[in-house]
């Protein structure tokens, strides 16, 4: 099993969700994170004082897939990222040792 992680602009999330649904994949975890801004830092002005904000909000999407499915899923997601977020989108997978599926009580290497 592998944990696939993608970090991308929030607007990309819909495309990724729809594409994964075509594969029958619905379960994923989404968190709100920040990344350094693409392009130059943004200047905010409040009451005449300048503030530099050089991070922008992003989404981290994580899903667990069996080894057999990982190449296809990563291929699909990377295609979407190359269109929607070519400069800053990132995608990687890491290995998962044990999965405990709470609903069915399964536990172990194959509990996907």
């Amino acid at each position, binding site marked *: 099993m592998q944990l696939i992680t993608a970090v991308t602009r929030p607007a990309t999330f819909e495309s990724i969700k729809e594409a994964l649904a075509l594969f029958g994949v619905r379960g994923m975890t989404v968190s709100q994170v920040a990344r350094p801004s693409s392009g130059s830092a943004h200047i*905010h002005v409040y009451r005449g004082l300048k503030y530099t904000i050089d991070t922008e909000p992003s989404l981290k999407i994580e899903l667990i897939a069996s080894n057999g499915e990982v190449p296809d899923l990563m291929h699909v997601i990377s295609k979407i990222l190359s269109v929607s977020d070519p400069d800053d989108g990132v995608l990687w997978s890491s290995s998962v040792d044990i999965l405990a599926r709470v609903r069915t009580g399964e536990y172990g290497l194959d509990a996907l």
Partner: protein
Amino acid sequence: MIPYPPWLNAGDNAWQLAAATLVGLMSIPGIAVLYGGIVQKKWVVNTMLMAFTGFSLVLLVWVLWGYNMGFGKPAHLGPGVLSNFIGVPGTLLGAGTQGQAHIPLLDGGMPDFRFSQATLSYFQFVFAGITPLLFLGSVIGRINFKVWLIFVPLWSTLAYSVNAFLLWGGGWWAQAPRGALDYSGGYVIHLAAGTSGFVAAAVIGPRLARDRARAVPNNLPMAAVGAGILWLGWNGFNGGDPYFAGADASTAVLNTNLATATALLTWLLMDMFFSSQRKPTFLGAVNGMICGLVGITPAAGFVNGFGALLIGLITSAVVWLSWNKLARTRLFQQVDDTLGVVHTHGIAGLTGGLLVGLLADPNVVEYINKDGSPFSSAGLFYGNPKQLAVQAGAALTVIVWDALITFLILKFLSLFMPLRMSDEDLEIGDVAAHEEEAYPDEGLVSSPGGVGRPAAGAPAHRADAEPGAG
């Protein structure tokens, strides 16, 4: 058979009470949420609580002794001005407040009031009540809350009552041959707040350097609510000050809105053309709005529409310059006036108060005297050059007296308690001072129902766990 005395005019009484309510709303919740939305998130509760408590403290002081010190019989403390700068303290707790309103030194000099003493004293209270809330803006983010609770009654008694008596209670500056003009408190309220706030900010010291560098607002829509209440509430602020629900009240309301709209747009355009970022900003527009409201306050019922337009334009431009240029000088960088009250209230009030010395139009009638003659005022552009000098003198008095009183009160209090919160508490903010925060996150609460109260159905547990532990 009308069920109230013949001197009472229901229209005057109704408008005076409505105007007073509008001004009260400007404090609660107006200033509370305007400031609450503009300050950084960790000081929201502290700011709003100082607004609510400041307002309440002034009301107590007002009915116990303050009103009569501002509007009562003069205290004869010496010759000349010393007999005409403060009234004899007295309470407003009896049923006598149902009687006809009187300001002793103005009796006979202007038409009799046609509402009760309770109406007049409540109306004057809401002005006294908002003034500390304005200079609250200067000391946000470090003043010790206990100091606030004691400072407000002392300042209201010693500074505000004097300002009010001198200019509105028939005191020295109002009397002939001076005749200083302050329609609704450009000096009594705004110059006073700006001066006192600046001095207090200097004496108490600045916020943490980190806070000063990261002071972004937390809720602009809430600030918009506060700003809107201020703008329209000012219809009561200026519309109620002629004391008669007559034509001058209408003039004051129209002038107020005209000056405000002009000032807002002036600041906006100056941001678009002259600021370093060249962008129109919402908070800039709100600043402009406030400058217009403050600038027209000493002048609303004395000037004509053109005068109001000029006041809006000039006051906004002057304060824009002071906000963006003067604020960068060493003195202003050292003194941490958190919300810039010295600019938007101090300098704006001074500018408006001087402009009325130029622009007061004798064709704008304040009221009709008992003998049928109209009462009005004239400024330099209408052939009365003395008015400008009088306005300057009155301004100087307010600045010097208020600065001195603020300084002395704070130095006195510093003998008994620290003026600032501890650095530890300053790092934490609201939770350290009040154990509340503006936007608590229920997901982070670890013991449901708080310490000592077990969740429904759960076994009782010992109530000695610390809040937030685990």
